[in-house]
């Protein structure tokens, strides 16, 4: 077995920068792992393999962060549970921040900005309608300050 010249974090990020979202699958215990690391947190086995997830998941927790309008207005972060059983912090794009609710079905997309890849999510139904894959949509968030609850179908 050869020793990789880079750590798992760098290899995971390089894949993201090329538009590919990878998680890990432990060959010993069969469980998925995220964030990527050199030891399986479930069973202690050596570095789980990088694999492609289905990309689908469910919003597990949400918050809308208050931000002044001139700084870009309110935005949100959320936790998403992938169908493989792993969780990550991210955001859902294409909805007003307060419209992102627990239980929402979402699909992962890699947004590459200035060469750096980032996993974001789209509402699943919207993703199926999406015309031009590969390019990020307009910046996320953009919920109008003080209009919580509006923009239920707030596509850009």
């Amino acid at each position, binding site marked *: 077995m050869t020793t990789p010249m880079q750590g798992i*974090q760098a290899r995971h*990020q390089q894949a993201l920068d090329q538009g590919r979202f990878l998680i890990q699958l432990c060959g010993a215990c069969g469980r998925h792992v*995220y*964030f990527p690391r050199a030891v399986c*947190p*479930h*069973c*202690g086995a050596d570095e789980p393999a990088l694999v492609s997830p289905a990309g689908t998941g469910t919003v*597990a*927790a*949400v*918050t*809308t*962060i*208050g931000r002044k309008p001139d700084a870009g207005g309110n*935005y949100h*972060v*959320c*936790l998403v549970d992938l169908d493989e059983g792993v*969780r*990550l*912090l*991210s*955001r859902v794009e294409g909805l007003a921040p*307060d419209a992102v609710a*627990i*239980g929402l079905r979402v699909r992962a997309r890699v947004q590459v900005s200035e060469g750096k890849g*980032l996993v974001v999510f789209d509402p699943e139904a919207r993703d199926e309608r999406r015309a031009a894959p590969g390019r990020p949509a307009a910046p996320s968030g953009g919920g109008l300050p003080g209009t*919580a609850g509006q923009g239920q179908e707030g596509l850009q």
Partner: protein
Amino acid sequence: MSVYPRPLPMTPQLKSLRGATAISGVGLFGNGETPGFTEVELLAEAAKRAVADAGLTMQDIDGLCTASVLSTMWPMPVIEYLGINPRFIDGTMLGGSSFVAHLLPAMLALQAGQCDNVLVCYGSTQRSGTMNRAAVAAARKQMDPQPYEMPYDPVFPVSAYAMATSQHMAKYGTTRRQLAQVAVSARDWARKNPDAFERGPLSIDDVLKARMVASPLTVRDCCLVTDGAGAFVLQRADAAKAGPKKPAYVLGTATACFNRQISSMPDLTITAASQSGAGAFAMAGLTPKDVQIAELYDAFTINTLLFLEDLGFCAKGEAGAFVESGAIGPGGSLPVNTNGGGLSCTHPGMYGIFTLIEAVQQLRGEAGERQVANVNVALAHGNGGTLSSQATAILGSADAL
């Protein structure tokens, strides 16, 4: 994650620590705004008070536990400043739970005879310091990276607690009014404490209508940002008994941690307090029914609900209704955060040491207008990171031994 939720071991040796040590001195200094002081200066004032309260001099101190948000080698400048030469040193940094978590190693060191008089101490200029919280947050991105979370600008710690709140509300029907009652009860206690930083009236509507910081948490669901310092002295029970003040015996304590990042927390509605609390109660040989007051690390209103449940005072999902009934405020069945808590009394960044100090003052009967009658068993609970590290201590008077 594979350890979750394995019970902590309870050996005869650990059980023998019950009542073997006691907090014999406490000290507070500089709560609120203290421009013109450094962190070690605030710490030293609290330390001097705690040492004097225990009937000792600084030269008697031969064990030191301390932690700092800013300094990674903090025990060294503290040792140098106080002019002590400790035989036992613990600089374990577990965020706000640190000073509760310092108890068990100190108890073991005292039992082993490694030292006799342990000083646990903390000072912070978080409010007035030259390096403000935004600068600290920026530095932490480099010094303590969270590369899978920070790119989304989550504004920690509040976003993590807000997301935990969202899960608790979705799963258990917890309401914003119930959360607001946590803040109101804390304020009702603070109004009885002349040392509390926020003592003005506060209503449920005040909390609900305050500026939303990270939904569903408004600024009144969030703790204060103050300067401040606290310290206590831990001794073997026989020495503490010979001191000038009534000892607060450590009946049980345990520390637990499942994760660092909120995204790695297995269930945002179940904290590692479920493990630390069970361990502390097992060592003490007590149950939540035996506890008269609880000092719970209330960095945000959701904390109080989570810890009431995880420590066994309420079934999971029922803390909202419990709090709404008025149970935790003055005159309630379980007084919680009798000093006003992190929400209304003090929060210099790591609040844990203040839970212990308030528990000691209540056990001694020194709490003035906020004194709860007949306190013999008090629980103090520290939380660190973003619901990450949890440390529980159960203190008792001589009657509880």
